[in-house]
């Protein structure tokens, strides 16, 4: 079986203007939503208390809300979580005057109301921790970017490193844009997924770059644009199949992994889809713009060149 029997190279580079404007528009949209709506940071970053409780029967959310108001927690969010028997309670940090003790007080109050309530999970994050996590996340992002640029610089050329990292940061911004637009919760595991996408989607660019380098050595008389087109066309089948396989795993997590893994898998899905696009249609045009040439790989050998030339 074979999905991709492409006889002629697809002239990707001649679509350059179109694809660049498409990615520029999506990128700007993502930035726009990030700026106007902002990310819906989870408790990991903002601090606060999240509790998941389980009842033996369907829970009456109004009663739970009433009870929480009774003990002074008016701004808490109470919602069903997964099933009608599971309830998620979120209390913002500013209402919390007792720190880690809050969850015990809440549970005690709920027990009075219904003895069957069972504590499933508590997350309490103090204000000091959230700040650290944001800083560490930013540091990790920076370090990954620098590491990748550095490696590609050594392995290929600085132009490749720069093109790859711009393409991938473009993916990252778009993932964040999605999270801002839909106001999905941005938690620590989503951050992990974003950083993993950064490492993963660079693969994509690397595979194409490898081919470009190989083509420069093999196809001596071909134009740079054609060389890139050929490299993309010939790696296309691999690109789609690999991402398809990874996506199968991620989809499985998206639907079967439960609530904790849901947004993690969602971030990966967006990241995978856009990394296919960006590695082909962002990284490669950028490479052209940076003026990649055969001389980047092959030191011109004078004597041989003279023989070849008429």
């Amino acid at each position, binding site marked *: 079986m074979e999905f991709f029997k492409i006889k002629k190279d697809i002239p990707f580079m001649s679509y350059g203007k179109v694809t660049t404007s498409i990615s520029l528009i999506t990128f700007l949209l993502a930035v726009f939503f990030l700026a106007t709506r902002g990310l819906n940071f989870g408790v990991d970053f903002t601090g606060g208390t999240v509790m998941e409780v389980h009842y033996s029967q369907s829970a009456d959310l109004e009663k739970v809300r009433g009870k929480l108001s009774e003990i002074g927690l008016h701004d808490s969010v109470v919602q069903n979580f997964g099933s009608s028997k599971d309830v998620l309670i979120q209390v913002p940090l500013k209402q919390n005057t007792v720190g880690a003790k809050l969850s015990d007080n809440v549970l005690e109050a709920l027990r009075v109301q219904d003895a069957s309530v069972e504590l499933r999970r508590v997350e309490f994050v103090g204000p000091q921790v959230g700040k650290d996590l944001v800083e560490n*996340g930013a540091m*990790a992002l920076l370090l990954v970017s620098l*590491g990748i640029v550095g490696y590609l610089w050594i392995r290929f050329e600085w132009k490749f490193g720069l093109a790859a990292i711009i393409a991938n940061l473009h993916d990252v911004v778009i993932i964040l844009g999605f999270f801002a637009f839909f106001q999905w919760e941005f938690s620590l595991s989503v951050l*992990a997924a974003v*950083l993993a996408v950064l490492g*993963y989607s660079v693969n994509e660019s690397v595979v194409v770059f490898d081919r470009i380098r190989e083509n420069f050595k093999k196809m001596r008389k071909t134009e740079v644009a054609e060389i890139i087109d050929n490299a993309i066309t010939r790696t296309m089948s691999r690109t789609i199949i690999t991402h*398809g*396989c990874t996506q199968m795993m991620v989809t*499985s997590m998206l639907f079967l992994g439960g609530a904790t893994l849901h947004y993690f898998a969602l971030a990966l899905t967006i990241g995978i889809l856009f990394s296919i696009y960006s590695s082909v249609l962002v990284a490669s045009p950028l490479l052209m713009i940076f003026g990649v040439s055969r001389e980047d790989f092959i030191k011109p050998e004078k004597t041989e060149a003279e023989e070849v030339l008429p």
Partner: protein
Amino acid sequence: MNHYPIWKYLLILFAIVAGLVYALPNLYGESPAVQVLPLRSNLKADTVLLQRVEEALQSAQIQPEVMSLEATSIKVRFADTDSQLKAKDALHAALGDDYVVALNLLSRSPQWLTNLNALPMYLGLDLRGGVHFLMQVDMKAALDKAAESTSSDIRSTLREANIPYAGVTREVNAITTKFRDADARRKGEAELKQRFAGLDFVSSEVAGEFLLVANLKPQEKLRIQESAVQQNLVTLRNRVNELGVAEPVIQQQGVDRVVVQLPGVQDTARAKDILGRTATLEVRLVDDEHQIGAGGVAPFGTEIFKDRDGTALVVKKSVILTGERINDAQPGFDSRNNEAAVHINLDAVGARKFKEATRENVGKRMAIILFEKGRGEVVTAPVIREEIGGGRVQISGQMDTAESQNTALLLRAGALAAPMEIIEERTVGPSLGAENIERGFNSTKIGFIAIAVFMIVYYLMFGTISVLALGANLLLLVALLSMLQATLTLPGMAAIALTLGMAIDSNVLINERIREELRNGVPPQMAIHTGYENAFATILDSNITTLIAGIALFMFGSGPIKGFAVVLCLGILTSMFSAVLVSRALVNLFYGRKVRLNKVAIG
């Protein structure tokens, strides 16, 4: 062309067999168990204790599955949770307070695997259930406390040396000593410099007073902070022992933070209560001579504290002893009148100070004050009957047995050198933990099956080989995680799934290359060879970039991210091995020996 030397096959075979052995314990699952740990250092886990445990279980008619004696504890495994709980109560009754009887889970894997050090993966709190706390040590308070005790030491030093001084005052960390004349100050400075190596002294004259200002040296501050964290770690360990947790983790994190992980703890309120008892103990004299001033103002040099009944007491500011001088405290009975009492054992310095204080203050009262979050409460304020030497102290009177036990626990668990606050909590109930395992396992399983079906349909024989290599990857990854006993969390399980999804990339690259070569008319054997050769550089590059991301995540990630990063990094290593070496070995075995190979099944 497509042959491996025999040693390469053997190496791969060895890796796979070792992988099987070390991954095996994960299949047996875990059983409820009870762990018995001696609390005091003079008690040992030995055959005598094993005998006692056995007898206790026998008399309670509980049938253990396996009993084992380990370096520091005895572990007993049971068939079900019911007998586990019964055994815990029976053992606690039989052994008393000198031993911790903790609930635990033990692997059901056979003894020969355990002897090989093959253990199941170490599950994180989000998978097995338990509590995770991050606590912050209040460094400002630690320094305050050190400065306060230094200023009282300065007073006593000057007094002992017979150097006249007009007063010692403290403002934050600066301790100012007033002298009447320059001569006294010179003497005082010489004396103090000799005694306090950790202080910087500056002299000045203000409004005709001769001042000597002492400040903590920077390195002294660091030392105080470091030792405050260390002491808090020790104290927390003691407190956790009182909780009876099988495998607690208590570690320093960063400069001023402590991580406490208590697997299997379900009563989080109690855990928080005992850990969060950010208590510091101080022994001070009660000032019965002065009355509380108008409007509740404390007389000069004293503070007002309330006891448990709410009665106010005037207590002197100077501290005789702090909690760290207490070696041990046990509940017991007064030998004279059989009243409930607490027996305290002080260390050498504490004993000396206590002797001095009691000699000078017979007939007066001393207060033991417990500070929680800056608020002091008088635990007890007994009358000093006589000079007490030797460091053995007994507190009795107006206590019932429960109260004496409680007080002893507070004293024994020791005081924290500086207050601590819980700044992060993650609690996962046991049922959610089990659910998380199931979800993580299921999504990996379904994803794996989907990939396997697709690869076999699309690449036929080569797809089958790729799937086998992917299976080897999973096996090696699980084996490696079990061997290293790295903590597996839910994000870690996600990383297993993700690395499997990503690892197939290497095989797709190889298979596509081979197809391409075949399309160009290269004979099959040659196509396989160049396919693998050409794909390798690409595989290496793309894996290294992912590895860079993994390492950065590991360095800067905390908690769940770290768990993810560890598995991601290990998964990249195993996938390189399996996708390149294992799949090549299989291809070589299958096709490499055929001399005339006209066609390969690659779809």
